[in-house]
């Protein structure tokens, strides 16, 4: 479990990664990943691994999955040129519009894929965890679509701050289970979902919402989210006339980021930048900047970077965005950081809020608070890289954030005398 990798090793690992050889058969991305799960779940994990090997890349499954993406999710999502933002920032800004996907975020790509898989594997019901509620809504919708009952675990704190999504889950027929233990946010919700799973490993399919957890989830979620980067890459070539110099995505668990980055890994000239939640400050507990400030450890099934104290207890986090408010991160990101292919930085609450507002005002796109972090850093990057072309993964829309945003009155742009 050493995390230090020399340059030679890093080069080899990057090549393996680009060649699609990672994770290895033990579920590892270099030193990161693995499968740290209770013995009770081992048969379920083995079933899942087998199911993935059998179905995920089969013609029939891919046909069904791609058809749902196209006809139900609404893919391909648009690639938007942002002329006014470009002018303000001095770089050429392109936006990959996952906010236009059904239910309002990239989460649906994964949810419908796993729901189809669950059906294939004969699951009787589905459980999911959710932070911002986007994965909960996506799971609820996907379960309705494939006709499986769905229960969503959600921290009590998140239920409060993402109320619109709670209502939507209910409407979509899901049961929302409030989690009152632990930090009452995403991490506690995952713990609780795992506990439920342990009680019926054969009947339940656990529809995990990010590229985290034990193998094969980080792999499965990456495969289902890579459609983002595949589309964006082709669209950039077609519409922008070439690949971007840099691509930005926010990183909570890391699913939208890996979805955008993975298909771009081989274009080694593209700078890839993951943006984490800097919260209110640098200290442990003030942010959710796992890669930027964390240390290696095992949390919820995989060896990755986590925010923990020296005793190995995982620490509570703070972010204005529920979807980034998580003490762990997907192991493939820890890997990509270690080998130096992706840079991870943090943007704080205020910078994210300002970015959200700037995008609203210049391009008429109300982005999610999670996503706003990516803009917050892209803006800084632009200052040092005038004239460059950049791609931003717009992971979701901000409608769900209204209860939070209401606390920060908008500065209206109506500035003519009326």
């Amino acid at each position: 479990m050493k995390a230090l990798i020399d340059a030679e090793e890093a080069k080899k690992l990057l090549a393996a990664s680009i060649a699609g050889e990672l994770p290895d058969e033990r579920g590892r991305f270099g030193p990161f990943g693995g499968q740290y799960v209770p013995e009770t779940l081992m048969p379920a994990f083995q079933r899942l691994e087998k199911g993935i090997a059998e179905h995920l890349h089969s013609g029939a499954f891919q046909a069904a999955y791609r058809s749902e993406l196209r006809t139900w999710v609404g893919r391909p999502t648009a690639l938007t040129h942002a002329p006014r933002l470009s002018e303000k920032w001095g770089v050429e800004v392109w936006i990959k519009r996952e906010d236009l996907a059904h239910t309002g975020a990239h989460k649906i790509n994964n949810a419908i894929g796993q729901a189809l898989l669950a059906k294939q594997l004969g699951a009787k019901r589905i459980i999911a965890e959710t932070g911002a509620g986007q994965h909960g809504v996506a799971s609820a919708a996907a379960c309705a679509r494939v006709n499986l009952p769905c229960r969503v675990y959600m921290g009590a704190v998140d239920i409060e701050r993402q109320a619109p999504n709670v209502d939507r889950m209910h409407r979509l027929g899901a049961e929302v289970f409030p989690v009152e233990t632990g930090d009452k946010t995403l991490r506690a919700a995952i713990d609780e979902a795992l506990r439920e799973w342990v009680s019926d490993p054969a009947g339940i399919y656990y529809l995990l919402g990010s590229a985290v957890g034990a193998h094969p989830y980080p792999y499965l979620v990456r495969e289902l989210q890579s459609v983002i980067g595949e589309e964006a890459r082709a669209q950039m070539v077609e519409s922008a006339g070439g690949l971007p110099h840099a691509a930005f995505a926010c990183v909570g668990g890391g699913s939208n980021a890996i979805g955008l980055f993975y298909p771009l890994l081989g274009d080694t000239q593209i700078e890839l930048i993951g943006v984490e939640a800097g919260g209110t400050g640098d200290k442990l507990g003030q942010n959710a900047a796992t890669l930027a400030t964390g240390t290696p450890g095992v949390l919820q099934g995989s060896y990755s970077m986590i925010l923990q104290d020296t005793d190995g207890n995982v620490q509570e986090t703070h972010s204005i965005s529920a979807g980034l408010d998580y003490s762990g991160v997907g192991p493939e990101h820890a890997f990509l950081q270690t080998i130096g292919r992706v840079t991870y930085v943090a943007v704080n609450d205020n910078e994210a809020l300002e970015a959200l507002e700037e995008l609203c005002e210049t391009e008429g796109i109300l982005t999610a608070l999670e996503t706003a972090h990516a803009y917050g850093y892209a803006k800084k990057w632009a200052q040092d890289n005038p004239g460059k072309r950049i791609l931003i993964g717009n992971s979701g829309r901000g409608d769900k954030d209204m209860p939070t945003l209401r606390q920060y009155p908008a500065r209206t742009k109506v500035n003519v005398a009326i």
Partner: protein
Amino acid sequence: MLPYERISHAIGDSTAKGNTALIPFMTAGYPEPEAFIDTLRAVASVGDVVEIGVPFSDPMADGMTIQRSSFSAIENGVTLNWIFEQLEQSGNDIESPLVMMSYLNPLLAFGYDKLAKRARDTGVCAFIVPDLPFEESEEIRLTLEAHGVGLIQLVTPATPDNRLKMLSEVSRGFLYAVTITGITGGHSGLPNDLADYLDKVSSVSSLPVCAGFGIRSAADVINVGRHAAGAIVGSALVEVLEREEDPATFLRNLR
């Protein structure tokens, strides 16, 4: 005798007398850190082996009772290092072999080598790590065993037969047979097909088999004792500690 062999011996001593070995579980430093060693002594005075729980922030295999005890202990400053310090200061005179139950991350943070040495020196003969399946265990297992400290494997009713056999061979001290598919602290009673399951596990294992999860009463212990060498009592004991009742009395009544 290697430390982890002390465990099977202690269990064997008990079963030799026609008893069911009793393995109480207690969260370290709960409810009061100051009382840790006294509680441990009391528990060890009845238990053949004692399982000490290291509190962790994300006890994903545990029910409400142990979660509560774990969060409370963390708040009260209980850490792995503190537990070792307390054991060291106690004079190492507790007879029953000790087992530590900990999620992986605190052990990882502590450092495996240091962990193995401090365990050996404080009478901790083995570890139970609920989020560490055998496949991921090589590094810590070898390091512990280099100091004679064992890693106890768990099997569950969902474990396929070939895997059950494999796990029984690599376990140390005893084989932990989880009685249910579920988390600790269940109140729904032991399953009806428990006997068949435990008989199967026992028939496969050359190590003593101890059953845990959901064992709350003398009747449960008797029930389990017919088909396994020992019974592990966790949440029920933690509830006793929580209510500040005498753990030794509670445990004696389980016999």
